[in-house]
C-alpha cells in the first residue's frame, strides 16, 4: 500500500492499479490545482485562458 506521502501521481497514471485481476480497488483524488471558477456551468475546468484580442 502506498499513500500520497510516498507517491505523488497525476493524470498520467490515474488508472486504477494495474493488476490482471485486482483484489481491491480503492483510491481518492483531489484537485491539485484548484479550478478558478467552480461552477456547474463551465464544467470540470475553466475555459483555457488563451486570450484573443477583442
Amino acid at each position, binding site marked *: 500500500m502506498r499513500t500520497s506521502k510516498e507517491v505523488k501521481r497525476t*493524470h498520467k497514471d490515474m488508472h486504477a492499479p494495474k493488476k490482471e485481476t485486482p483484489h481491491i480497488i*480503492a483510491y*481518492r483524488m483531489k484537485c491539485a490545482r484548484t*479550478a478558478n471558477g467552480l461552477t456547474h456551468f*463551465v464544467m470540470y475546468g475553466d*475555459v483555457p485562458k488563451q486570450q484573443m484580442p477583442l
Partner: protein
Amino acid sequence: MNRSNKRNQGTYLVDIDPAWKLVLDPENIFWGLLNKDDQGAYLPADFLHLYEQQKKQLDRQLADFRFTTELNSVYIDPTDRCNAHCPYCYIPQEIRKHGTQMSAGLLDEVLRKIKAYFKDSRKKPVIIFHAAEPFLVKELLFDAIRKYRTSFLFGIQTNATLLEKKDVDFMKAVRAGVGISLDAPAKALNNHLRSTGNGNGNYDAAMQALDWFDGYEGLSVITTVTRHNVTVLEELVRVLHAKKVSSLLLNPVRLTMKSAVSLKPDDTLFADNLIRAVETAMDLTEKTGRQIVVGNVANTILAIVAPAARRMMCDISPCGAGRTFLTVTANGDMLPCGEFIGFKEFSGGNISASSIGHALHSDAFKRVRERTVEMIDDCKTCVFRNICGAPCPAELHARGDMYQKARSCEFYKTMIRYAFQLIARDKVQYLLRSDAVRRMEYEYLYA
C-alpha cells in the same frame, strides 16, 4: 440498502454487480471495490489500516465541502422573458410572457455589488447569464462582459435562436462559457420540446451555433430528458460528437412546475438509455481521441473518486443553492437558485435594497441550506446519501415537501452503481474532462 448491510466501523457492504462488491463509508465516501472472485471473508489488514488512517481526514473533508464551501458563482437572469415555450420550464408562463427585463443600470449595480462581495477573494467568481432567454438583452450582456471581464469569469446559457456569428466570435474571444440548449438529434422532436411557436423550435439555430463554435473548449450542450426524448440520448451523443461538442449534460426534467410531472421519464428506462449514451460517449472518445463527456455522469464519478472536486452542486446535500451559488432575477430579487423563481417565500431580498451577504444570511436561504439528507427519512440510512444528495429541494417543495427523497431516487441509485462499475472497469479517464483530470492527484491509492 440500509444499516443491515453494516460491516464495521462505519463501513457498509453493497453488491454492485456479479463481479464486484463495494465497501463504503457513507459519511466520508471512503470506498473499496472488492473483486468477488478473490474476496474471502475478511478484508486485508492493510486495507483496513488505510481506512483507519484516512477516516478522520475524509470525515472532515466531506463535512467542509458540505457545510463550509463558500459562494463562488452567481446566476443572473437579465430577463424573465423567453421566446421559447418548453413544456417543462420551471419559470411560470406568466413570468416568461410578461416578466421584467433588467435595465443597464440595474445590471451594473448587481455586478458592482457582486464585485464588492468578492473583493477579498483570491478566486474570480463566475457570473452566469441564465434563464429565461438572456440573448433577448444581448447588448446589455456584452457591455457588462466588456466592462467586468477582468473581475469575473462569464458564462451564458442560451437556446441560440438569437445568436449571430459575431456573437460567437465575441464569446470565444472573451473565453466565456456557453451552454446551448438542445433536446434531440432530430429536428421534429427537438422543436416539439424546444418550441418557439408556429411549429418551429431552436433546432436549426442550435446546430448552426455548434458549427460556429467549432469545438470551442467552453461549449456545453444541455439537454432536458423527458419521456419524449429519453430513447434518443445515444444518438444525440453521436450527433454532438460529430459536431465537436466535448461536454453534454443530460439532466432529468425538474418537476418544479406541475405541467412537467407528466413528462418525467421512467427511472429504469432513463437509466438504461443514459448508460447506453455514456458507453457510446466513452467508445467515441477512445476510438477518435476526441472527447465527449456526459457531465452529470462525470459528476457522479467525481462524487466517488474526488468528492470535493465535483462541480455540479445539485447532487450534494445541502445542495449549492444559497450556498455556493445564488440567482439574481430580472427585478433584482435574490433567490437561492433559479428553480425557486415561482416561490416568493424563498426570496433573500432585493439586491437594490440589500446585499449578497444579507441574502446569504436570510432565513429564506438558511431554510434551503438546512435541508440535509440526514433529515429525510428515506435517505438518512441510504449508503449513497452523500453521493446523490436527494435533489432537488425546489422541485420537492413544489411537490409538497422538500424533506422527501428525490423523485428519481431509483434512477440515482442505478447510476451510482453503474459509476462504481465504470471505476472497476478502469474507465475514469474517459469520463472526466481531460483538463480536469490533469489538475488532479492521488490523496491515497491502495495498491
